[in-house]
Each structure stands twice: as structure tokens, then as C-alpha cells.
């Protein structure tokens, strides 16, 4: 499996001074933040638990180094009812999946740790965890408070035996996975300096009802819900960077047009629907502009408009096909596909249409560029015989790596996760299309949605915090 340089590897793993600095025991209780505008589901409380940040470096970042983490079973206090226990179990499962999927850790779970004769004395047990080459341990205790479950999780550095991160979460039983995602993101942030992505989502299209519609799912493929019900062809979802609405293409009015769905209300509204063809929307990072493909008398060109579809400006003029624009993260450039040189290749230009530069030269068909969050690379589909692979090109070096070499099927529509550490794409094999996520550090690939054909993933931005 091809691996590309880990973003983690570039980050020094030295543990930095942390907020969690309180050396004394006790629980800091902070009132619930107001989420009055979004009443459902019920909000949770999270608190920092006392810890100690005076910890020596854990890992010297380099290559594929992973943090070696012991994660024994969560202790459930006696007196916890069955439904609360089930919620805590779901929390633990999701947290283990999140941490495992992050690629940041090499985790020893209860089965790995079963060889140890634990004593119940923390100092002794920490030495035992350490004897299995673990560098940190995640210790969590959970209990019930009326109709909610509470989890207190603490991370310890095993060399110093000091607490380096402590959190308490409380939530209704239905929020167990969400609480796990939240805690996982905090742990990832602590160790890598970048937020985890367990609270992000992926928009995609699926034909599971017999018509292509737009859907949303959590980053791990859970919690799938429909966004459209046009009973037509709806495709090409594109997140607004504000995370509260998604643009998409639909044929329900006849000609393909660009619409927007508000995620809070489900309300739809047209963005650009006049003319013969409007497709492939993409928002600028500030959310103020939208780039898309528009047909001028049968020839498709790239246009940029304000986010509501006003102030249309044509930014390409070529006899070839121009399509699939993607704003750079800093909003100054557009990557797009053009057949102006005979075959589809990826080009980059300023948003005004100036300073055109071709960036793919290999093969005869490259399409569907998505920028890495740091703007240094693009990922796209590249043709290999009758199938496509996912490739990454470094824009400074114009150096290309294929990520899906040897993976059966045809792979397209790549989209970067907001932390830049994963790529979601769709794979068509045996006449079935599924969405997959590759963790770039490890090359590990996971298949997400499975019902019907699922394609065209677009990864959400980070949710607001």
C-alpha cells in the first residue's frame, strides 16, 4: 500500500503545557454551555478534570511512529442500571473505534492487557502497563446520573505517572457515540496539535431508494440520513464551509441545476438553475463564492458567482470541456478539469481566470481535484485502463503518488478530511459502488455505507466548537 508522508510525522509529539494544569485533586464543575438554538438532541456537559502537564516528551515524531496506548476496560460503578450500562458500552466501543481509526495510536485493549496481574494499586499497575512498552494509559470510569450517563476519562503518561488530560462528559443515553467522538477528538488534539475528525460528517449520493438522492453520514459511516427526496437524479454534494448547508445538483426540474439544502430545516432553494446545464458546485473557504460548471451553447465553462448565485462571472474560455472546479483553501485559486489539450487534465488558475497552469501530465484522463487542507497537494482520479485510481500530486514539486495501486475496482471522487489525514472516495467493483476512507498514515482502508450504490463523497468542514 502506498503511503504518503504523515502529517503527524511532521508534528513533534512533545507534550506541551496544557490547560489541564491543576495539580490538586477535585473536580472542576462547569455549567452547561447554552445550545439554545439547537434543542435536539440534548446538550452535554464536558469538564476538564484535574491533571498535570509537567510531562516529558512521549514520542519523537518520525516516520510511522504511533503512540503506544494502554486502554483497559472502562470501570462501570455499581448501581448503574442496564440502559445506562448499555450506553456506556456503546460509548466505549465508539471511543475504541475512533482512537483506533485515527491511526495515531497503537492500542492495547483489555485482551492485550489480560496477561498482566493488575493489583488495583495505581503506581504498580502503571508500571505493569509500561512493562508492555505502553507510553500512556487511558483510564475511564462511568456511572449513571438520573437519565444520563457520566464518563470521567483520564490520560496518564506512564513514565512520569502523571495525568496529562482529564475530561468528564455527561449525556443522555442516545448520545453515547457522540460523546465518544467528542472525547476522541480532544485526545487527538492533545497528542497531535490538530483536532480529530470524529465529529465530522460525509455527504454523498446513494441510489438506495431507486433514485439518486443526497445523504449525510457520520465520519465512521454511522447515522445515515437523507437530505433530499426529489425522486430524480441528485448528485455532487458540496459542503458550505459554514457546515450548515450543502449545495448539490439535481435534475428534478428537467435540466441539471444547482440547489442548496439547509441542514437545520431541510429547506431547499435554487442557487443557479437557469440555462441548459449547471453542475459541479464548490464553495470558497469563506463561503462567499461558489464555483461551478455552466454550459454556454453546449460547451461547458467554469463560472464563479456569489453564494446565492448572483454576480455570475465566466472564468474559462476554451473550446474544450472545462468542469469540476475546486477552490484552493485560501480562496485565491481554482483547480479544474479541462480537455483543452486533447484529454482531460487538471489545471490551476487564479479565481479571476488568469495565471493558468497545467498540473497533471501523466496518463490520458485526470479529473475531480480536491485540495489538501494546507493547499500543498491535490487528490484526484486518474485513469488506468478501464478503471480509475486515486492519485495525489504535490503542487510545488509536481510529484505524483498513486494511493490505490493494487486495490481492485475503479476509484473516483476523492475528498480530503479536514485534518488532511484521510481521503474518502468511491470504489466501483462488481457493479457496486461504495464509499471508502483511507487513512494516509497507515494506508488502512475502511468501507462505509453499504446499502445500494454510494458515490460522490464530500467531507464536511470541522463543526463549530
Amino acid at each position: 500500500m502506498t503511503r504518503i508522508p504523515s502529517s503527524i510525522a511532521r508534528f513533534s509529539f512533545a507534550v506541551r503545557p496544557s490547560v489541564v494544569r491543576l495539580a490538586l485533586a477535585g473536580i472542576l464543575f462547569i455549567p452547561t454551555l447554552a445550545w439554545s438554538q439547537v434543542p435536539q438532541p440534548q446538550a452535554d456537559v464536558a469538564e476538564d478534570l484535574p491533571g498535570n502537564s509537567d510531562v516529558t516528551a512521549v514520542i519523537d515524531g518520525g516516520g510511522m511512529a504511533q503512540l503506544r496506548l494502554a486502554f483497559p476496560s472502562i470501570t462501570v460503578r455499581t448501581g448503574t442500571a442496564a440502559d445506562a450500562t448499555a450506553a456506556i458500552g456503546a460509548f466505549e466501543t465508539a471511543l475504541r473505534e475512533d482512537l483506533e481509526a485515527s491511526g495515531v495510536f497503537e492500542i492495547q485493549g483489555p485482551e492485550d492487557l489480560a496477561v498482566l496481574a493488575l493489583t488495583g494499586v495505581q503506581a504498580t499497575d502503571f508500571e505493569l502497563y509500561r512493562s508492555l512498552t505502553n507510553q500512556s494509559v487511558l483510564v475511564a470510569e462511568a456511572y449513571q446520573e438520573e437519565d444520563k450517563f457520566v464518563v470521567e476519562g483520564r490520560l496518564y503518561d506512564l513514565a512520569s505517572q502523571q495525568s496529562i488530560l482529564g475530561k468528564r462528559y455527561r449525556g443522555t443515553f442516545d448520545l453515547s457515540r457522540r460523546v465518544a467522538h467528542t472525547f476522541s477528538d480532544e485526545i487527538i488534539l492533545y497528542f497531535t496539535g490538530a483536532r480529530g475528525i470524529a465529529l465530522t460528517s460525509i455527504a454523498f449520493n446513494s441510489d438506495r431508494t431507486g433514485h439518486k438522492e443526497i445523504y449525510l453520514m457520520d465520519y465512521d459511516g454511522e447515522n445515515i440520513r437523507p437530505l433530499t427526496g426529489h425522486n430524480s437524479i441528485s448528485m455532487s454534494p458540496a459542503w458550505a464551509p459554514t457546515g450548515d448547508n450543502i449545495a448539490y445538483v439535481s435534475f428534478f426540474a428537467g435540466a441539471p441545476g444547482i440547489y442548496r439544502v439547509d441542514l437545520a430545516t431541510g429547506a431547499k432553494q435554487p442557487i443557479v438553475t437557469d440555462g441548459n446545464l449547471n453542475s459541479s458546485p464548490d464553495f470558497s473557504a469563506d463561503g462567499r463564492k461558489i464555483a461551478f460548471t455552466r454550459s454556454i451553447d453546449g460547451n461547458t465553462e467554469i463560472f464563479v458567482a456569489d453564494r446565492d448565485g448572483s454576480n455570475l462571472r465566466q472564468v474559462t474560455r476554451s473550446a474544450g470541456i472545462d468542469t469540476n472546479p475546486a477552490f484552493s483553501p485560501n480562496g485565491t485559486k481554482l483547480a479544474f478539469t479541462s480537455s483543452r489539450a486533447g484529454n482531460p487534465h487538471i489545471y490551476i488558475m487564479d479565481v479571476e481566470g488568469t495565471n493558468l497552469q497545467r498540473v497533471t501530465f501523466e496518463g490520458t484522463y485526470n479529473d475531480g481535484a480536491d485540495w489538501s487542507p494546507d493547499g500543498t497537494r491535490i487528490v484526484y482520479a486518474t485513469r488506468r485502463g478501464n478503471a480509475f485510481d486515486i492519485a495525489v500530486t504535490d503542487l510545488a514539486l509536481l510529484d505524483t503518488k498513486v494511493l490505490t495501486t493494487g486495490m481492485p475496482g475503479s476509484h473516483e471522487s476523492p475528498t480530503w478530511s479536514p485534518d488532511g489525514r484521510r481521503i474518502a472516495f468511491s470504489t466501483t467493483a462488481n457493479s457496486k459502488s461504495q464509499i471508502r476512507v483511507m487513512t494516509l498514515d497507515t494506508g488502512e482502508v475502511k468501507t462505509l455505507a453499504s446499502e445500494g450504490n454510494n458515490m460522490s463523497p464530500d467531507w464536511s468542514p470541522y463543526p463549530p466548537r
Partner: protein
Amino acid sequence: MIRNGMIALTSLVLLTGAVACKPKPKTAAAPVIQSVEPTPTEIAPPPTPTIEEDEQAWMNEELARVTAEANARGLLGDIFFDFDRFELSADARERLAKNARFMMDAPQFVLTIEGHCDERGTNDYNLALGERRASAARDYLVSLGVSANRLRTISYGEERPFCNGSTESCWSQNRRGHFMVSSRTTDG
């Protein structure tokens, strides 16, 4: 009760701790507080758009019969394209000449030309490619004398394959321009 007492105690402890540990966070490593932000889990599908009826109108039986009868006479047949190409082959031009003759003989009809692609290539690119295929057919019909305002085009890209399968035989059938009598001219 116990908890309230504990809160008071811990607040005190916190205060002491905060004073004792003067250095405050320098980085964003561990935020002070988090709340799980809820997102709506259910989004109601919208009512079925009424515009759907327009699409049905294209299918209306009478016009479909006109198309079928033309097909039976060897007219309004599909034209086919090479992979990733929208140029018209000699065969396609021959077909289009027949289709043009039908349109000249039946001035009361409006023709919709659908551009289709095989499943290879990306969905977005294929929408653009289908648009080019449909408009290449339209432009040729116009060059043969058919009035442009009696011709409509729509690209379905790879979204509506004629043949389902991943073989060259299927792909070649799916790279096509498809012709359907879609309405009557208002003046015809």
C-alpha cells in the same frame, strides 16, 4: 447535597490551584470546556416537486408513439461516440441526416436530444461530456436545416445508462445521443 458540597469544595480547590499554578494555557492543546454540539439527525425529505410533471410530459404517450413509429421506419435512431469523444462519426452523420429529414417532414414536433456516457470517467466530467455530445448532434441537425428552436438538449452523463454492465459492448451502447419527440411546436 453531597455533590453540591463537593462542588463548593472543588471550587475552593480550583481557586487555590489556580493561584498556585500561575502559568495559564499557552496553547490550544486542551480547551477549558467542551460541549457536544448536537446536529439534527432527521431531515424530512421535501415534498415531491411539481416540476416532476414536466418530465412526465415528455413521456406522454402520444409523443412516445411518434418517436416509436419513427424508430420503426429507421428514423430518430441513436448515434454513438468513441470513449471520451464528442466528434460525430460518418455513421452518426448518416443517422443524423435521416433524423433531420424526419424533422423537416414533421414541422409540428420539437425534438429533445439526450447526451449519454458510459460509466467510465467521473460523474461530473460525464455530465459535461454528455452536454457536448447532445450539442454536437444538435449543431449538425441545424447545419442540415432544422430550426434550432425545435431542438432541445439535455445531458444525463452516465446517470441513465441504456445497458447495465461493465463490458465494452455495454459501454459502446451507452456512449450515445438519444432522440425523443418531446413536444409540439406552438406554431406547428
